[in-house]
Each structure stands twice: as structure tokens, then as C-alpha cells.
């Protein structure tokens, strides 16, 4: 097959599958003009939903980033059967359908669940409330940071860390001054993926939140709701906003990448 035809095929595939639909949604969101779109986005319902989404990001992302880092370092620098087992557990969420994630959290922390009954006795409500949403988001986005940081750690190797040790650095100093900077691109990519995943999680959240309008609806559920209630402009506007948030995250990632490349 000729070069041109291969190129045309590839571009055509991506255009039809990704580019065109993306363009279409943008057009739809603004089809009634900027006014209605803006109104939809700033309604109390939408603002609450946005707040909930951002709350999930604010909690789940740093926690998963920290644990992802720790686990990647453990697997890479202190290999053992235990760390490999930890690695397997961290990868586990990849095999879960999001709906199943919601279900298992419900089963474990819901009223009749293993731990849930104990929690209810103490007045702590996790499911059908915002904590459940945050937990669900943490679960689905768990693997990304570890999986992105691990190969970078492997590639960079221990030389720099050993050099720092001979220069007098303690364990914490080595982590902060050498290890962390050396993996910052992988970390940034992992954090971006984690954030995008949390921003966009719908399956797990649907099950775990009870989808209570105005209370436990993050942006994704609101969009789905609005579309099903034929509020198309609002739905598309929300979709574009979420998409823009994700793009901002990835734009930040490019900056980190470029900064690292200059060196």
C-alpha cells in the first residue's frame, strides 16, 4: 500500500472517529448562542455539580498521587514478593467495570455492607453522599500514577540516588531533591490521567451516589440527566465545560514536559 493511501486511511479514521464528533459537540453547545449555554452552566444545580466534581478531584488526586508514588518507589527500589503483590492490587481497578466499582463500594460501605453497618451505627454516611463519590473516584483512578512513574524510575536508575547518598543526603532528602524531580514528567502524566479520570467518572458514581438531584450529582451525572430530559443545550454545554477542564489539565502537562525537555 502506498504511503499516501496509508496516511489518508489513518487520518480519515481518526477524523471520523474523534475529530468530527468533537467539532460537532462544540457546535451544538453554542447552537443557541452563548447566553443559554452560560445560563445553564451557572444555574445553582450546575454550580453544585461542579463543586462536587472539583471536590472529588481535590481529594482523590493528591491521595492517589502520593500512594502511587510510594508504591512505585517500593516496587522499583525494594522489590520483594510483597511489593509485587501491592503492584498487582494497584493494577486491579483496571479490570473493573466502573459500574462494578460502584457496586463493590456499595456492598462494602453501604448500610448492609461489611463495614457499612458499623459506620451507620456511628452516624457516618458514606454511600449516597459525597464521601462515597470520592471513594469511587479514588478507586477507579488508583493505577495511573504508579503505572506512569514506575517505568521512569526503572529507566533513571539508582545512580543519582546513590550519588546523593555519598554526598551526605538522608533518605528524605534523596526523595525530595533527587527522586521526585527525576520522575516529574511521569508523575505529571499520571496525575493528568488521574484527574481526567476523576473528572469524567460516571459509571461508579451512578451506582454509589443514588443520583439524588441537587445533592449527590457531580457534573457527569448532571449531564446525563439533562440529556435524558431533553435539555440538550444544557447537556452539551456541561459536556464542553468538562472537556475544557480536562484539556486544561493536559495543557498543564505539556508545560511540565516542555520544561523538563529544556534541560
Amino acid at each position, binding site marked *: 500500500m502506498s504511503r499516501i493511501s496509508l496516511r489518508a486511511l489513518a487520518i480519515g479514521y481518526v477524523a471520523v*472517529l474523534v475529530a468530527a464528533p468533537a467539532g460537532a459537540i462544540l457546535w451544538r453547545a453554542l447552537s443557541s448562542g452563548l447566553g443559554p449555554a452560560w445560563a445553564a452552566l451557572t444555574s445553582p444545580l450546575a454550580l453544585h455539580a461542579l463543586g462536587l466534581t472539583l471536590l472529588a478531584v481535590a481529594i482523590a488526586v493528591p491521595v492517589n498521587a502520593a500512594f502511587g508514588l510510594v508504591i512505585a518507589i517500593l516496587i522499583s527500589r525494594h522489590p520483594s514478593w510483597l511489593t509485587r503483590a501491592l503492584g498487582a492490587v494497584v493494577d486491579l481497578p*483496571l479490570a*473493573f467495570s466502573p459500574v462494578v466499582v460502584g457496586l463493590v*463500594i456499595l456492598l462494602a460501605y453501604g448500610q448492609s455492607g461489611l463495614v457499612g453497618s458499623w459506620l451507620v451505627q456511628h452516624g457516618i454516611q458514606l454511600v449516597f453522599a459525597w464521601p462515597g463519590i470520592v471513594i469511587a473516584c479514588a478507586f477507579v483512578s488508583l493505577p495511573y500514577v504508579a503505572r506512569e512513574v514506575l517505568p521512569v524510575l526503572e529507566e533513571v536508575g539508582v545512580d543519582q540516588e546513590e550519588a546523593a547518598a555519598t554526598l551526605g543526603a538522608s533518605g528524605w532528602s534523596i526523595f525530595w531533591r533527587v527522586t521526585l524531580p527525576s520522575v516529574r514528567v511521569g508523575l505529571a502524566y499520571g496525575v493528568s490521567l488521574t484527574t481526567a479520570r476523576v473528572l469524567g467518572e460516571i459509571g461508579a458514581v451512578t451506582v454509589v451516589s443514588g443520583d439524588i438531584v441537587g445533592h449527590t450529582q457531580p457534573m457527569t451525572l448532571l449531564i446525563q440527566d439533562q440529556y435524558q430530559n431533553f435539555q440538550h443545550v444544557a447537556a452539551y454545554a456541561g459536556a464542553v465545560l468538562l472537556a475544557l477542564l480536562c484539556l486544561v489539565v493536559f495543557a498543564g502537562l505539556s508545560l511540565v514536559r516542555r520544561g523538563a525537555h529544556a534541560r
Partner: protein
Amino acid sequence: MAVGYLSLLVLLPLAALLSNAFTGGLATFWREITEPESLASLQLSLLMAAAVVAANAFTGLLVAFVLVRDEFPGKGILNAIIDLPLALPTVVAGLTLLSLYGPESPIGLNIAFSRWAILVALAFVTLPFSVRAVQPVLAALDPAEEETAASLGAGPLAIFRRVLLPKLVPAILAGAGLGFARALGEYGSVVLISGNLPFRTELASVRIYGLVESYDLPAAAAVSLVLLVIALVVLLGLAWLRHRIQPLRGVLA
């Protein structure tokens, strides 16, 4: 501390799943997963995921090839667009496809509420996996081997089959594993566009949600367990296959 976090977050819920799936005993478990609508949904999910992954092996390779080995204006944009499905929330992905290929399609192409819709949605969300798995491997290949083959008289097709393909197989398998697991459990992008017609376009993930809504938790747990096991088996199987060709560090994928 890490162990504690992981136990609370992953292991405990997993235990809950297992206990719930088997609360009524093995017989009830079997009955629940062979219930006609549930069974149909499982079969559909499996079929769709397999089909998409098989197609992705080709399209992913094609796109990766063009990105690595071809030069043309706008290639950077193409490269960036590949990541879009990863960055986009799944429900947005579904809406995106709906807006162009659904009932209000400006080009009059309506595939909503059909199996084609499912395939397109799954192809959308799994595109990055198949391309990005192969791309770096392709980029890191030493042209020396292909040049040697050419100097020995091999034509482009032979070079592709005998020199390139064997080296790309582990990467293709890796992308396939991730894509399969993703496609098998996909919810957000398909729930709006597929119509969720039982026995026709109802995927297992949607079926599970339906069971949860009607508070039949043991049945939901049972079907979930089957889905999970299939995903794990495929992931581990592919990882084992790749390990035989080329040892790796990550465990599942």
C-alpha cells in the same frame, strides 16, 4: 500505611463482592448468571469487546505507523487528537458521538440504538490504548534490521511480516489487554448511545446497573463477578504471553 490504604480501598470491597455474589450459595449464583437477560448482556459485552480489540490491532498499528514513520503538516495535531478519548469524560464521549452520528445528526447518519453505535463508542474510548502501546516501540526500533533485510532482497511486505511484526507483537498485546478490559466494562460512553435494549444492545455494565436499581444486589454481584473474572483472565493471560516473549515489570498490564 500503603497496605492499609489499598486494603480499605480495594481489597475490602473485593471481599464484599465475593461474599455477596455467593450469599445464596452456588446454585443461586449459577441461576443468576444464566438468567436470560443477564446472560445475553454478558455475551454482548464479550462479543463487542473482542470485536473492537481485534479491529484496534489493525487500526492502532496503522495510525501508529503513520505517526512514527510519515511526515506531513498537521501531524502534531493528529498526535494530540489521539489522546482526546483518554482526556474526555466518557459521558461526554457518548454525547460527542451522538451529536454527529445520532438522531440529530447534521449529516443524516444515524446509528444510535444499534450495535454499531456500541462498536463506534468502544472504538473511540480504546483508540489511545492501541496506538500509544505500539507507538513508542515503533519509534525506538533500530532501522538497521530492516535495512539489512532489504539488502538481502526482502520486499516491504516481507520486511513488515518478518522483521517488524514480531517485535511489535508484545506491544500490540499490551494495548489489546488494556483495550479489552476497558471495553468490557465500559459504561459512560455507551449508556446514552446504545439505547440499552435488552437482548439487543444492553451491555453487561448497564444490566448490572439495572439490577442495582431494582435492588437485586446478589444478582448484580454475581454478574459483576463474572465480568471481573473474564477481564482478569484476559489481562493475566495476555501478560503471561508477553512475559514469555519479553519479561516485564508491571504485573497485570
